[in-house]
């Protein structure tokens, strides 16, 4: 999938939620990406570096929880991980399985920072865009 579009959406989502909590800055974004989601984790991480520029998440760390495909067998009850191209119960071989995990594409949580109201000159200086570190080179 086109991870840049997803990353942009993620940045908007995070900014919206941060705005709802009057946050000045987002320090960490945690997302969960399932093996069957169609999203390539490494590409999403690189796309995030491009998408976050000039936003509240500009210096946020993106933490990606990779979720393997897990199923529960409707036949024998076994629950466990399976390969994406061979979805069947590892114990009895039945194809009649339910997906327990691995299709997610979820924004799990945000770590926000709010200033208490007492703002030092240093902080004001830090918030000006032209003093923020620019991302280096082509990270895509």
């Amino acid at each position, binding site marked *: 999938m086109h991870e840049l579009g997803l990353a942009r959406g993620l940045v908007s989502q995070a900014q919206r939620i941060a705005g709802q909590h009057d946050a000045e800055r987002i320090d960490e974004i945690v997302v969960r990406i399932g093996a069957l989601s169609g999203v390539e984790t490494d590409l999403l991480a690189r796309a995030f570096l491009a998408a976050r520029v000039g936003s509240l998440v500009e210096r946020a760390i*993106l933490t990606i929880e990779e979720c393997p495909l897990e199923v529960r067998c409707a036949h024998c009850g076994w629950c466990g991980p399976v390969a994406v191209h061979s979805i069947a119960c590892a114990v009895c071989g039945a194809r009649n399985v339910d997906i327990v995990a691995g299709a997610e594409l979820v924004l799990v949580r945000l770590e926000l920072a709010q200033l208490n109201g007492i703002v030092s000159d240093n902080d004001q200086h830090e918030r000006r865009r032209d003093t923020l570190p620019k991302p280096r080179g082509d990270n895509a």
Partner: protein
Amino acid sequence: MCKTCGCATLASYTVHSGAISPVTHHHGDHEQRQTIEVMEDLLANNDRVAAHNREHFNHHGVLAINLMSAPGSGKTSLLEATIDALKDRCRIAVIEGDLETENDAVRIRAKGVPAVQITTGQACHLDADMVHRALHQLDLSSLDLVFIENVGNLVCPASFDLGQTMNVVLLSPPEGDDKPAKYPVMFRKADLVLLAKSDLLGLLDDFDVDSAESRIRGLANPAPLLPVSARRPETLSAWLAWLAALMPGTRQVVA
């Protein structure tokens, strides 16, 4: 970490398989920290609009089929043959998706049914917003069946709910019988897989139909695999019956 080549910037993300590792931060005491549990789907906006589209379709009793495949598998030709077979018995419209040109919509309109062309420009898939805008150009109260011919692409369209009733994925013999294994996300989404251009099976004898079917089963997908040929109307009966079963009002008139 190298400071000149840019690789140091990749250290700002961490990838975990399984458990979460805490990331520690350095911050001043004039800051308040807050953890917000979100658990929101990244595609939540699209899903919201898709649900809205689905309500529209359901409200008017319209069967909506999302037709997906690689470019050139034969979606438009199949639609032309399907419309020829069905148009006297049910009211059809088509939403066409392509990056550029109105070519496919023109072909559909030549068959005497309305077609709305979405030209996506650079987007490699249709999304719920685009389909929503297209729906406003159709009168759903006068329709029984809407085909959404997605952009030719076996990757991205699988992940975008459009509000459709069913997903139909085309596979054609030149693509190889292991395609379902190569594109698991797409072929898992299929409610029906059509082996299009079935008239080529005689020429491309290394395409093993049973093998293609078993690869679909390997994805824990019980969806039927039906060979069809747009050039041979007699091959379409199982496909038409599948559609008819989903449109109770027309069941008795479609063979």
